[in-house]
């Protein structure tokens, strides 16, 4: 493979206070066989244009920092190989559906708020027993029920892929709802009732129309769409149980 081949990246730039809106800037980068888009961005920043701003960290698909739109598809740039996108040009933009802070950096506030809104921690009915009483025990089968939903790396690709979140930013969204299911299914947790209102609100599962693109783009195969459909069933039962006159059964 010739070392002299290059590939063009069209990178979105946005300088707050200078630019009215994002514009595209072209860069020529080496087309190395083992390079990913993140390598190309690092090359640009190191060798060509130090003003380019973007997030990245682990460069191996576990931290969730480097999510961007690559040719219109939300991807982890550390996992998108240049050779798969050749001959290019490759269009790199900030993750869609989020405000752009600068260049390829998005504002995360709404996403963090949504995650917090589902009470994403173990909730117990009674105060925690002292450590001497031992840890909460869990069998491998009990772990298996929620493990898939615990694999989320908060990369936000699902929010970029979700057209409902794009049209209705109030939607709690795929990752937050998958996280709610992760805790609801955890045998150590007793907080299902706490999460029921958020899950069962209009901006909870009921905004979702099962487009399924969230699960398609998820790099960790969390399948948030599946989690949401399961939550719809639970939430629908809960709606009927909350009708006036229906006797309440003992909750978990």
């Amino acid at each position, binding site marked *: 493979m010739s070392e002299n081949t290059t590939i063009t990246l069209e990178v979105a730039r946005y300088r707050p206070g200078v630019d009215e809106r994002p514009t595209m800037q072209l860069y020529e980068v080496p087309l190395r066989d083992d390079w990913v888009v993140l390598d190309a961005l690092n090359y640009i920043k190191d060798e060509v244009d130090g003003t380019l701003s973007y997030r990245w960290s682990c460069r191996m698909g576990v931290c969730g920092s480097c999510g961007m739109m690559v040719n219109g598809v939300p991807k982890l740039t550390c996992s998108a190989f240049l050779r798969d996108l050749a001959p290019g040009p490759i269009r790199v933009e900030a993750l869609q559906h989020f405000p752009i802070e600068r260049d390829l950096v998005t504002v995360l506030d709404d996403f963090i708020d949504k995650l917090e809104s589902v009470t994403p921690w173990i909730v117990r009915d009674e105060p925690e027993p002292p450590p001497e009483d031992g840890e909460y025990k869990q069998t491998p089968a009990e772990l298996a029920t929620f493990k898939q939903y615990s694999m989320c790396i908060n990369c936000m690709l699902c929010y970029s892929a979700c057209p409902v979140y794009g049209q*209705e930013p109030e939607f709690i969204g795929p990752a937050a709802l998958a996280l709610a299911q992760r805790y609801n299914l955890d045998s150590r947790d007793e907080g299902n009732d706490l999460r029921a209102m958020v899950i069962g609100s209009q901006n909870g599962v009921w905004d979702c129309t099962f487009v399924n693109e969230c699960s398609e783009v998820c790099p960790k195969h969390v399948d948030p769409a599946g989690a949401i459909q399961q939550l719809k069933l639970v939430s629908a039962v809960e709606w009927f149980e909350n009708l006036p006159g229906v006797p309440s059964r003992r909750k978990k």
Partner: protein
Amino acid sequence: MSSRTREFKRSNDPPFWLLFSAGGMISALLLPVLIVLLGFVLPAGEVSLERVVDVFENVFIRIIVVIVASLAFWHAAHRIRFTLVHVGLHRLATPIAVASYGAALAGTVWVLAVVIFV
């Protein structure tokens, strides 16, 4: 801006979603064969008209016709409502919901009337 201060109200979508799901399953199972039989085989003369009359006059079949048709309407109403809201008509979300489910209700009343009174 924290959602912890946000008010969450229980949505009333569940009954409509359950109707959508039931309608979706019934339509998925029954419509293809019905369309082929009643839309192609029957006009081609390969289904006896007497058999068609016998089938539809049967009281259990009348009930099934009501179920299949009305659930198809409720299924479509739910999907059409969300589709319209998500292609830019979010400001009209409430009127769209009322119109969609209203149409499904009208369709249900119509099929009941046909099966009972005609």
